[in-house]
């Protein structure tokens, strides 16, 4: 069997996604968790581009526009997330995620 380029792209993005997921799940450093999530987001972006490039109606350009939005939002997310990390750090003198559980019920 042969894989189409679209499938290859999707497999690539899936791998990247899982790497991000595993990192987010396994690391206790909040920054790394955030970075893992950032990876997952990027994997999603790859899908957008892949479908734009190899999809049935590439002329529309919608995938590209969505990726742009996604990048903007991701940048914002990174800024807020890291600001939160710093704020938490000021409180607890560390940034271990499992200890930031003061809001639990």
């Amino acid at each position, binding site marked *: 069997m042969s894989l189409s380029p679209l499938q290859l792209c999707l497999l690539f993005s899936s791998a990247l996604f899982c790497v991000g997921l595993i990192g987010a799940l396994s690391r206790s450093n909040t920054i790394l968790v955030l970075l893992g999530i950032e990876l997952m987001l990027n994997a999603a972006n790859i899908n957008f581009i892949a479908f734009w490039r190899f999809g049935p109606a590439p002329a529309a350009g919608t995938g590209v526009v969505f990726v742009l939005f996604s990048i903007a939002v991701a940048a914002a997310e990174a800024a807020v997330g890291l600001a939160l990390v710093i704020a938490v750090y000021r409180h607890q003198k560390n940034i271990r995620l499992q200890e930031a*559980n003061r809001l639990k019920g």
Partner: protein
Amino acid sequence: MNLSVQYLWLIPALPLLAAGIGALTPRSGKAIAAGATIGAMGLAFVLSCGALVTALKDPAAHLVANFTWFELGHSAVRLGWLLDPLTALMCVMVTFVGLLIFIFSTGYMHEDANFTRFFCFLSLFAAAMLGILIANSLLLLFISWELVGLASYLLIGFWFHKPAAAAAAKKAFITTRIGDLGFLLGMLWLSDATGSLLFYDAGKGVLETSALTALVTQTTVGGLAVSTAIGLLLFCGAAGKSGQFPLHVWLPDAMEGPTPVSALIHAATMVAAGVFLIARVYPLMSADQAIATAPLHALSVVAAIGAITALLGAVIAVAQNDIKRILAFSTVSQLGYMMLALGVGSWVAAIFHLLTHAFFKALLFLAAGSVIHAAHHEQDIRQLGGLKGPLKVTFATFAIGMMALAGVPFVFSGFWSKEAILHAAHGWNVSHLPFYAGLVAVVLTAFYMTRLVAEAFFGQARSPASEHAHESPAVMTVPLVLLAICAVLLGFLGTPYWPWLQHTLDPKFHSEPGGGGLMVTSIVLVALGIGSGWAVYGRRLRAKASAPDPIEAKVPDLFAALAARLGFDELYAATVGRLNTFLADAADVFDRYIWDGAVRLLAGLGQFTGNVTRETDENLVNGGFDATSEQLKSTAKTYSRAQTGDTHGYLMLVALGFVLLVLAVMLGGTR
């Protein structure tokens, strides 16, 4: 000198003023108080004599001076003064006897700490009595009447630190007030029926023909004429004040006051007021005589009560040992005589006896006071004895008083006045029972007075107190002598041979012939009384204080009953007293348990309702909400356990969920 009726009010006003002075004088001002009192009384005496002169000019006239007290509705409440021979004579008697008693008191009460207060009360007493005498209005009379009650209350309870005196004062006030309620009702009725309370008011007064006619023609409950009913009600008041059966119980107890007070109460003032009242309203009392078919005549009741009282007082006096108590019961008895006289239709005889009795009873009491004073306040005749030696003046005057009271013939005033009464009673055409009662009382009176004199003055002294007795000072003996003289002379004003007094009082009076036989009977009875008295007590004089009374030795039960005053006090205590206590208890229980209980029940019901709604609110309504919220809370708690705070966990769950979802889509999506 003449005294115009316009200034008649000065007669009571002077003693009243003196009473005011006495009230404001400090305790040390004995001379001021006594001087003011005696001076005022002396002036009042002079004025009374002036009034008498005025009154004697026209004995048939009723001089009046009426004035308005205050406006009431379209009319007014009016009061007034009245001057007629009755008023004038009584005024003279009261002021004269009062004056002598006052003088006597300065000696008798010399040592007392409350000397000024005593004279203040005495003066008030005299003023109130004089007020009764000059009143031309039943209302004014009633006012003075109550003030007499007040003064007697104060004087009987003068030694108020003695519980017995305090109790006696209260008893006197309450007992007379019972009678006064009748008086009050009678007065209200009279006022309502005639629209006036003035005795004489130029034809509109209640004692004048038009009013009387109206009163007689109306009838009320039981077919009584209104005048009869009113008369009987007024008589209640008189009976209370004059110590008539059955309201006589206070009189003997009133002996707890100082002796001059007893003299004043029993002779001149208080007890005389009742007799005077009946004499004053005599036209009203006798109005129903005009209707022969009346079921009851007011005067018949008066006569019956008078007869009973005369007999009762005399009987009880026989067994008393206290010198003042014997005299007190003799007063009861003599007042009965007066009422008897009023009842049988001879009010002049009653007034005659009232006047003579005032003098000789005042004499007897003052002499007894002198004895008590001399014997260091020993009043029991068994403890006295042999006093005629040391107390010569006292003995002589007491003896005169005793003979006047007993009715020793011809010389003594008591004989003539009593004779007048018996004569009238004999002539009464309704019943002869009062007459016989009077006769028995004559014997008894002579008997117990003889007993008193024999026990107290003869024989030897039976106690240290009487051994060391010595004659009282002149300030006390001079009044005695003056009174003794009057007790003798006064009788001659009203003998059947020269009935000046009777004509003066009642110009229509005409003496009925044929009193000779009666007089003889009376003399015999007096002799019998004195003789038997002397036989029992005089011949074998008491040797020891503890020796039994000769009569007691013979009939101990009877004597004990008499000594216990026939148990009237006990009877009243057991009936009226107990009824009163019962009513008070009942009223109290009513209040405490029934009405208050009802209120409490209501309050309790309110409280119960409140509790019920509270419980409902708390347990049912609130409880429902509470339970629901509790449930929610615990559920939330349970679910909140899922909220671990472990971010990795959440993330992992999301991932696992995603896997499951995709698997589900893939495996199920093929279909």
